[in-house]
Every structure is written in structure tokens, then in C-alpha cells.
């Protein structure tokens, strides 16, 4: 990936034509560029077509084509019965979605952002997550709650919170956080086919980012298993564990560090709960150093959980330094650009933390 990046930058060609030139690719020439938004759209389209019990509800998902256009075209194709615009009543429509799931349907409940899911969080946790257990396996809840999570750009404190740690805390839920277009498509399809409540944390700033999608990922049966992390970049010196948008930051940091001879292994968690601790441990036992990177607040966060799990497992004895967490700043998100930019991890923060952890 890094070499093709350098190649096409040198030739000055744009991304699309670069990929179409055979000599740049060992992979099949039928790989296409797809944005995360379109990948999500494809996933929902395919699952709606595959199973008539699947339907989508949320604010503006139908006639507006989705607040962020993720559900574009679906209402035109499937109509009022399958794509439902709701009033601005999160607690009500989330509860309705859970009830529908209990009675045999397979709803996708969209929160315009996960900030608004706080209004409905009782339905997500008490009505959806816990029911299978409380009923000793009699009542399952096959539902997906999806929407953008975490910081955006200039939307200020009430619209920028990351809920990975909040939902990741609860048994009975699966919590997924895709990064790339392939992640988005494969994981959303898995989430919809899963018979359990899945919280699917997207990222608004990633919606428009194009990624190469392999031919395999274009198949209608392409799914990515929930609960497995992916090594996006191999390396021997240090492990970077991250999720969602910060995978990009870590890969960019890794590219810079590689020039200085530091090879980072970048792990894309893909799933927050259940956490793929084994993949992290395997990597740490190779590199002996670990940095976690997330957008959420540090206290009781995803990185904190990873630290605790590493300490409790075999990888602890392989650490040559304490684990470092790179997180959002522990404040409500400010508005002014300079303040906002300095409230979330930047590539330079990752680079700095890697060097500190390696003591170089």
C-alpha cells in the first residue's frame, strides 16, 4: 500500500487512473474505489433484498435519503414499508425497533448521531441487550443500532461524543467500529445477519473517504466476522491498536516513522466488544511495545480496557515499556477550529507517543 502511494504521487496521476494501470497492481484489475458511505449503502441494500424481515427506521432515512446520505436511494427502491422516516423521538422509535425485533423482524435502527442514542439508551441496554439473558434464551433481539459516532468537524460538545466505551461496557451487546469501506460493508452485513443486538459505530468524517474494495468484497455474501481484529500493517518494533478513523492516523504515522527505521504494526480492532485480545497479545509478544489510539476520552475508555487485559494475560511479560494510551483530551469538545484540532489525537501525537514508548 505504501509503495503504490508513493508511485502514484510521483507520477501525478489521480487515484482512479493509477489503479486502472495494471503495472501498479498485483491484485485483480476489477478492484474498485468505493466510499465508506456507498459501502454502507450497498450493505443495507443487499441485506434488504436478501431478507424481507430487514427494514430501516430513523430520522430522515427515507425521503431525505439519510441525514448523511448513507441510505440514499433505498426508499425509492423499497418504499414506505421497509424504509421508515420517524418523528424526532429516539426513545420511542428505538423501543419500537426493539419490539419489532422481539416479534420476528430484523430492524436497522439509525441514530442520526450516537449522541442522540443517549435519549434511547435504556431501550438499547435494558430492553435489547439484557433480554436474551433475562429470559434464559427464550427471547432474542436481532437488531442493529447504527449511526455516526465520535467527533465530527465543528459540531461542538453535544454532538461529538464517542460511545465506544459506554456500549462496550455492556454484556449482551456486540459493538462494532469499522474503518475502511470493506470493513463497513462486511461488518454491517454481519451485524444485520447476527441474531443479537449490535451497536454499529460509524464515523461521519470517514463517510466520504474512498477505499479500494477487492472483488471478493463486492460479492453479495461478503461478510467480515464480528470479533476479529485485522492487522493492517505488519511491523516489528511496536504495536499500534486503534479503531475507526484513527486507523488512518496510525497508518500515516507508521509511514512517517518507517522513514526513520521504526516499523509499526497497526491493528484495526474492527470490533470493540467482544475485544480480540488474542490478536493484540500475539502482536505485543512480537514487538514488545504497545500504543493504543482512540478518539474517545481516556478515563474508563477502550485503551484503558486494553491496558488491563494486556496486564492480565501472557503478553505482559513481553512488554519492554508500559502501554501508552493516545486519546481524546479529557474535555467537552470545543468549537473553535484550533481548539477542536487540539482536542483529538493528531498524527504527530501518535508519532510522539511511539517514540516515547520506544524511548528514542
Amino acid at each position, binding site marked *: 500500500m505504501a509503495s503504490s502511494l508513493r508511485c502514484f504521487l510521483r507520477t501525478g496521476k489521480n487515484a482512479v487512473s493509477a489503479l486502472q494501470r495494471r503495472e501498479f497492481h498485483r491484485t485483480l484489475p476489477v478492484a474498485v474505489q468505493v466510499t465508506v458511505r456507498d459501502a454502507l449503502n450497498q450493505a443495507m441494500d443487499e441485506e434488504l433484498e436478501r431478507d424481507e424481515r430487514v*427494514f430501516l427506521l430513523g430520522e430522515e432515512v427515507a425521503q431525505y435519503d439519510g441525514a448523511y446520505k448513507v441510505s440514499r436511494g433505498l426508499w425509492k427502491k423499497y418504499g414506505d*414499508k421497509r424504509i*421508515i422516516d*420517524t*418523528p424526532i*423521538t429516539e*426513545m*420511542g*422509535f*428505538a*423501543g*419500537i*425497533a*426493539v*419490539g*419489532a*425485533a*422481539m*416479534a*420476528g*423482524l430484523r430492524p436497522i435502527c439509525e441514530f442520526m448521531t450516537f449522541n442522540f442514542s443517549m435519549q434511547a439508551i*435504556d*431501550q438499547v441496554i*435494558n*430492553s435489547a441487550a439484557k*433480554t*436474551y*439473558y*433475562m*429470559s*434464559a*434464551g*427464550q*427471547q*432474542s433481539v*436481532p437488531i442493529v443500532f447504527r449511526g455516526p459516532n465520535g467527533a465530527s468537524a465543528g459540531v461542538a460538545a453535544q454532538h461529538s461524543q464517542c460511545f465506544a466505551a459506554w456500549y462496550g461496557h455492556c*454484556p*449482551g451487546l*456486540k459493538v462494532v467500529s469499522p474503518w475502511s469501506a470493506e470493513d463497513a460493508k462486511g461488518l454491517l452485513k454481519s451485524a444485520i445477519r447476527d*441474531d*443479537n443486538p449490535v451497536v454499529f459505530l460509524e464515523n461521519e468524517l470517514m463517510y466520504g473517504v474512498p477505499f479500494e474494495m477487492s472483488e471478493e468484497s463486492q460479492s453479495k455474501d461478503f461478510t467480515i466476522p464480528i470479533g476479529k481484529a485485522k492487522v493492517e500493517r505488519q511491523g516489528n518494533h511496536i504495536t499500534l491498536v486503534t479503531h475507526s478513523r484513527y486507523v488512518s492516523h496510525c497508518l500515516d504515522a507508521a509511514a512517517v516513522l518507517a522513514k526513520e527505521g521504526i516499523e509499526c504494526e497497526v491493528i484495526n480492532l474492527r470490533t470493540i466488544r*467482544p475485544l480480540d485480545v488474542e490478536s493484540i497479545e500475539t502482536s505485543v509478544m512480537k514487538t514488545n511495545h504497545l500504543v493504543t489510539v482512540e478518539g474517545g476520552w481516556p478515563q474508563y475508555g477502550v485503551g484503558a480496557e486494553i491496558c488491563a487485559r494486556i496486564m*492480565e494475560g501472557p503478553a505482559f511479560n513481553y512488554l519492554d515499556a508500559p502501554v501508552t494510551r493516545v486519546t481524546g483530551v479529557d474535555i467537552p469538545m470545543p468549537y473553535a477550529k484550533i481548539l477542536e484540532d487540539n482536542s483529538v489525537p493528531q498524527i504527530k501525537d501518535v508519532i510522539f507517543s511511539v517514540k516515547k514508548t520506544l524511548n528514542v
Partner: protein
Amino acid sequence: MTYSSFFQNQPVVGGVNGARVVVSRSFADFTPQASFDIKKCDVHRLEEGPPLKAELTREQGLQYYRIMQTVRRMELKADQLYKQKIIRGFCHLYDGQEACAAGIEAAINPSDHLITAYRAHGYTYTRGVSVKEILAELTGRKGGVAKGKGGSMHMYAPRFYGGNGIVGAQVPLGAGIALACQYQGNDQVCVTLYGDGAANQGQLFESFNMAALWKLPCIFICENNQYGMGTSMERASASTDYYKRGDFVPGIRVDGMDVLCVREATKFAADHCRSGKGPIIMELQTYRYHGHSMSDPGVSYRTREEIQEVRSKSDPISMLKERMLSNNMASIEEFKEIDVAIRKEVEDAAQFATSDPEPPLEELCNHIFHNNPPLEVRGTNPWVTLKSVS
């Protein structure tokens, strides 16, 4: 247990030489069917309400009696077991309100759906769970309907969605179940119950709005037992006309102590929903003899005289019994026999509930996910890893 099997399990009555013989007096001696006047329902946004007369057959009467008496005795047994500390935690008893559960079930089909809040033991029974499985769930044993993992507020059965602990949360769920009925085009309805305390919850109004907008086949029923925990309805609600609180949703106010009134009103409501007119609200005016839960004596916010007055003048079981007796639809001996059989059923159930073992620790972590490969669950310390299967 279906309605018809309740009747088939009728106890031995009379007979020569103690042989198992059904009623020695021939059926021709009893009035097979009678028509009763029932209280007129106040209506909201409706041209007409349920009928003013209800037909009752002898079989139906004995069925309803049996059901209500079973719920009554089951709840009193739960009271006893709680005081003996064999039941712990929350226990919200339903005695006094039996006509609601019995009347609703009489009016809907087994294929319809029902969801309620935490005062749920009566509905768990009418929706088909045995007294034995209910009491064993209350005592936290493996033979309980939720294998001991749910307790009083979390009992489930096919088409019965609990048992819900968070006040009001079951109402959007019920509207969602109704949406599934509409989506699947199966002509079924969902009965969604809540109390006078929950009637002020915002999520109810969100549910009324969406149910009305989309014409969901949902019967919203407010079981108004006059007290939300220790707060009387006048002290909690700016408007106590709960049947009107749906505003644009039509409503009827029903005498919840009369099983026939409840049945006729529910039939009326179900017809309304099934004909595609959208949701409807029913307010059942009822009363609970016990306090809010077993930790509430129930007399600090109301008088003993009030409780006693309802017991003597409006008890649902007595009312039905008197109606049948005064119309020669059954004999006192028959009712006594039914009572004896129920007492035995409840005693046997309690015996099971106190002797059945607790769920095995190996099953602690099961039922986290459905259709999932087994997973590991962290125990209380890092050296304890527990197994979870679907």
C-alpha cells in the same frame, strides 16, 4: 394451557362411590347462558363504545372464575413465600386486579401478543405459563420459566414479552410488536399495558404518536389502580382521565373490576385495531389490595377502610361468583370444588418451587448471545474464565 384445557381439567365433582364423575347434577339444571348488564364505558373520540350487555355461558363463567381464583391464590402464596424469605428482591402482587388479565385474555386470540410492566404474574399465567413455573421463577430455581435468571419481573412465553422492569419502557416495545404484526400482515394485535404511574412517561406519548401516524394495531391499556407506588393519581397527574391522554388516539374508560366489562371492551378495541383504524387506549379502573410491592405495607398513603371497601363491594371474583349463583349458572359446591383444586395446584406448585434446586453455577454465563459459538466470559478475577453458550 389453553382456555379449553382449563375446563377439561375441572376437578371431580360429586358422583356415586367417589368415582370420577363429572357433575352429578345434569347440565340441564343450570342456566347454560345468561345476559348481563355491564357498566357503560366513557368514550373519547369515538362515536360509540362497547355494548352494554355481555353474554356469558356457564363454561365461560367457570373458566373465568377458575383463572381469577388461580391468580388470586398464586399471588397470596407468593406473599406467604416472600414473608418466609423464600422469595427475595422485588415482588409486585396482582391480587384485586384479576379481572383485567382474565378479561383481556378472554377477548384476544392466543396468536395475539401481550406485553406488560412488572406487576406481571397474572399475565404470565393467562398467557400460558403454569403456576409451578411462575412460583419456581420467583424462588429462583432452575424449574422457573426463565430458569431462575429473570425473577419476578422478567418472565416470558410465546407471544408474551414480559415482565419489564423499567417503568414505561414496555410501551414503545408494544408499539413495535404491533408494527411487526402490521408488517407481516397477520391480522394480529398487540396488547400493551402500563399503569397510572407510567401514564405520564414521555415515551408513551412518543409511542401514541407513531402508533397513530402509522395506524399500528396496538391496544394501549392503562391499568389504573389509582396509585403509582405511593403516589395517588391526583398527586401525579395533571389530568387523571387516562383514557383521554392519547389526545388524537381514541379511548374508552372501563370498569376493570368486572371481567365481562373488560372482555367486551377488549373485544371492541381489538376489532377497532384489526379493522385498520389504528391504535386505541383503554383505561381499566381497578385496584390492588397489596401495597406497591412486598416492601410496601400499602397503608401509609391510603386507608385500610378504602381497601376493605373495595374488597367487600367490588371484588372481581366475588362479583362473578354472585352473578353466576344468582342466575343459577353453577352451584356453591362447584365453586368450592374448584377452590379446593386450585388450592392443591398452588400448594403443589409451592412445594416444587421450594424444593427444586437452584440453577447450576455452570449455567451462570449462558444466554448472552443467540446462535453464537461458545465464548469465554471473564469471572470476578483474572484467573476465573467462565464459559458461555447460547
